């Protein structure tokens, strides 16, 4: 989860998020250098004593400041498109989970090996145990295995919601009447938090998502499979 006043991205828990962090670092360095150049140009403009009212054209400069940004954009676009296609790669998910958004809770369905369906409500502050996270912890977490490709089918029963888990690099809109699909493979166990990311009413901020990622052997032994 994010810590207080965190500005940067959370640590990656999936290969796609690792790639996204790498791309973010790459784009940020380019942006930093461009901003530095623009700031310097602004400083020069404000402090120069030179004035020339007769400039009519500057063909070479205009050529440079057209071609150079085009090259920079290509340098940013190529890794971006690579990651975009990587997220849509066809793999063979081991497990399919359905996530249905409601006002203001999530319903999860594990229907591959039976009919496990449960709701996931945020824990009200009065019901928190010591160590629980306020406005983030839920009564029933989504328990999933690591190192197995998982397919999430996301939809909504009422208004628009969005199922987001930043550490996995996931954010998928839950749209009534539509099934959206996203796949991911988690690389390390732990408890990971997300929040609804599409305004959906009064309690939009109070319908978090909590994933509990456990080793596959323990997932196979656990109560999720005994129905």
């Amino acid at each position: 989860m994010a810590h207080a006043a965190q500005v940067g991205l959370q640590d990656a828990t999936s290969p796609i998020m690792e790639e996204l962090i790498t791309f973010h670092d790459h784009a940020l360095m380019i942006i930093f250098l461009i901003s530095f150049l623009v700031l310097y140009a602004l400083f020069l403009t404000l402090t120069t004593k030179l004035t020339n009212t007769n400039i009519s054209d500057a063909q070479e400069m205009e050529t440079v400041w057209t071609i150079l940004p085009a090259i920079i954009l290509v340098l940013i676009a190529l890794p971006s498109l690579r990651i975009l296609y990587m997220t849509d790669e066809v793999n063979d998910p081991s497990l399919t989970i359905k996530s249905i958004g409601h006002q203001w809770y999530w319903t999860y369905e594990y229907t591959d090996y039976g009919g496990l369906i449960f709701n996931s409500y945020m824990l009200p502050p009065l019901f928190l145990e010591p160590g629980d996270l306020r406005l983030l912890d839920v009564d029933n977490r989504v328990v999933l295995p690591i190192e197995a490709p998982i397919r999430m089918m996301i939809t909504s029963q009422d208004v628009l919601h969005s199922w987001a888990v930043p550490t996995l690099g996931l954010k998928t809109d839950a749209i009534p009447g539509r099934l959206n699909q996203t796949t991911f493979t988690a690389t390390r166990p732990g408890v990971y938090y997300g929040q609804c990311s599409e305004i959906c009413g009064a309690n939009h901020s109070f319908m978090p998502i909590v994933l509990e990622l456990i080793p596959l052997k323990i997932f196979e032994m656990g109560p999720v499979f005994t129905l």
Partner: protein
Amino acid sequence: MAAPPEPGEPEERKLLGFLDVENTPCARHSILYGSLGSVVAGFGHFLFTSRIRRSCDVGVGGFILVTLGCWFHCRYNYAKQRIQERIAREEIKKKILYEGTHLDPERKHNGSSSN
């Protein structure tokens, strides 16, 4: 990278308050070399020409070019290293899983080299 600093650990410092050069791979290395390149280029230009403003321009240009060059070079090597680490991890897993069986990668490799 995203964890808050523990009580015993030194506070993390960010360049200009928001650029996390400590935890971003290659960032610190690129900015340091860029700064050095900027000083060398700008000061060197000034020594030869005694033109202050133009030397500042050369310094800024040097910073941008050297930082960018170091950054791409370092990130390319970092990406190669990550790929090699991933391949090594997969091979170690395969070796542990298939050791002694007909799928043992070492047996296949020895078999093909003896042929």
